[in-house]
């Protein structure tokens, strides 16, 4: 019951930030198109569309709009959570949150859900039209499956994001670290840069992210090379990693809070 209430007010907070900040809302709608346009422009300038299709098995426009959507949804999980302690520090709300009896894990688990919902709705405005354009009527159910899988991938990102949030925010000047970590996540998820092409260290790091398996699944699905065992094994590994990260995530958040309280939560 308490979780539902927290989720409700988190929805209100995130949607107020989005809808009462028009520039942010417009950017959320435009982001997949802007990113796709930019990457396609670069791609067309240096390479050929035919080669891209041969190598990936997907039209570059579809690949890029999908990759942008995957990024947007999975980063929604990471962003809101990882920035939350800093945003609360800047708003001056951090001491009131720490001095409240709320279950921290419950709060942090609720944080990414509202933006994720928004991203799914907004992102579908880019994925559905492009898929329908390229695959005709079949594109519609395909796009829904991709949106569903991307949502699942974003949910799988919650527990590793909690681990990172706790660790990063215990560091001094954590915003600098966050700005470095974010693009690394973007690469390691393998949405733009398939992990099969990554160097060994990158490949190993990518395998530790549960959502990267979902990205792999989406890419296989688009190439039409999926089968039931493949789907189950990828989802299975992602689920197992999600569960493995959970205790670490909760410990990491509590560790961050313990450190803050030891130093003294700043509010002036």
């Amino acid at each position, binding site marked *: 019951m308490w979780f539902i209430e927290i989720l*409700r*007010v988190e929805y209100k*907070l995130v949607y107020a930030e989005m809808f*009462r900040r028009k520039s942010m809302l417009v950017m959320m709608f435009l982001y997949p198109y802007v990113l796709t346009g930019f990457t396609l422009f670069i791609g067309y300038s240096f390479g050929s569309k035919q080669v891209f299709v041969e190598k990936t098995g997907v039209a570059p426009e579809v690949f890029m709009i999908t990759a942008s959507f995957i990024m947007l949804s999975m980063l929604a999980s990471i962003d809101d959570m990882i920035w939350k302690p800093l945003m609360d520090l800047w*708003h001056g*709300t951090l001491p009131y949150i720490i001095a409240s009896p709320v279950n921290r894990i419950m709060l942090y688990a609720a944080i990414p859900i509202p933006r994720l919902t928004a991203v799914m709705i907004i992102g579908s405005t880019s994925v559905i039209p492009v898929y329908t354009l390229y695959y005709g009527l079949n594109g519609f159910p395909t796009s829904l499956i991709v949106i569903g899988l991307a949502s699942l991938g974003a949910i799988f990102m919650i527990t590793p994001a909690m681990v990172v949030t706790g660790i990063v925010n215990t560091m001094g000047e954590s915003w600098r670290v966050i700005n470095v970590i974010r693009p690394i996540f973007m690469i390691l998820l393998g949405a733009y840069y398939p992990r099969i092409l990554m160097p060994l260290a990158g490949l190993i790091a990518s395998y530790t992210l549960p959502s990267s398996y979902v990205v792999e699944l989406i890419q296989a699905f688009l190439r039409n090379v999926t089968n039931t065992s493949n789907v189950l094994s990828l989802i299975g590994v992602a689920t197992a990693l999600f569960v493995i990260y959970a205790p670490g995530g909760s410990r990491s958040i509590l560790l961050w809070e313990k450190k803050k*309280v030891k130093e003294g*939560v700043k*509010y002036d």
Partner: protein
Amino acid sequence: MPSAIITKNLRKVYRVKKRLGLIKSQEEIVEALKGISFEVKYREVVGLLGPNGAGKTTTIKIISTLLIPDSGEAYVDGYDVVRQANEVRKRIGLMLTVEKGFYGKLTGKENLEYFAALYGLSRSEAERRISHLIKILELDKLGAVDKLFEEYSLGMKARLSIARALLKDSPVLLLDEPTLGLDPPSARKIRELVKSLAKEEEKAVLYTTHNMFEAELVCDKILLINKGLIVAEGSPDELKSKIPKLRVITITLRNSERVRVGEVLAPLVATYTVTGSEFGETVVKVSTKNPEEILGEVIRALVACGCDISSVRVEEPTLEDVFIYFSQ
């Protein structure tokens, strides 16, 4: 009845890095609290007064579970602030700063709803409490209920902060300079509310302020804190009586010759001045440690020599004098 807040020998040391150049730095040790002990009872407003850096905020932070002390103990409503922090958090209403502490893109009411959820209030209970608080803090009259927090005036922000502190109906309130920067009507509203919360709703209030006038009006007891130690405590009157200060008797006379007045006073008091006021009156100021002992005699002497007394005033030492005396 047990005390709502008990602190025993609280100590806190901060290790601050002091920059010595581009790369070099040196650790500096700041003793914020050197062992403070005090109690706050229910139905009591206790003021924590002291100069900047005295340890007021550190004390509030420890009691509100936002800081762990190095040693000593603190209890809120019977619960240990370190070992039973979550129980303490259920029992405190907190107001730390007036300017910040809310989400700018949420309205005042939405902000209260947000914190009500964090405090574990059910939706119906939250709605009931919020409506009640909006009414008693007159946020509706100010048009602040559906206004975004980022558009709030300082007075509105202070009222909203108080409303949040009261959301849980906690038995203990910790208010850190709640009227800082407020206009007189808002400051008065908050002072009146704090007093009534203590007396009528039996809450224990720990209140920090720099405003001596306010401390005197609101607080039942004052703790003067300086350099991490409580240097004096008592009611405002008790504290005033603790400082050795001369009090000044000011007597205003009509139609009196200043020379004659001086002749009358000379054998009675050691230190006095006789001056003229802008309204043509004669103003006599007598400095003494014991005004009660000489006042009658002075008045009788002046009346006997034909002086027409229009007013008599004895200036007591103010809380500000007490503050300055103990802060030095």
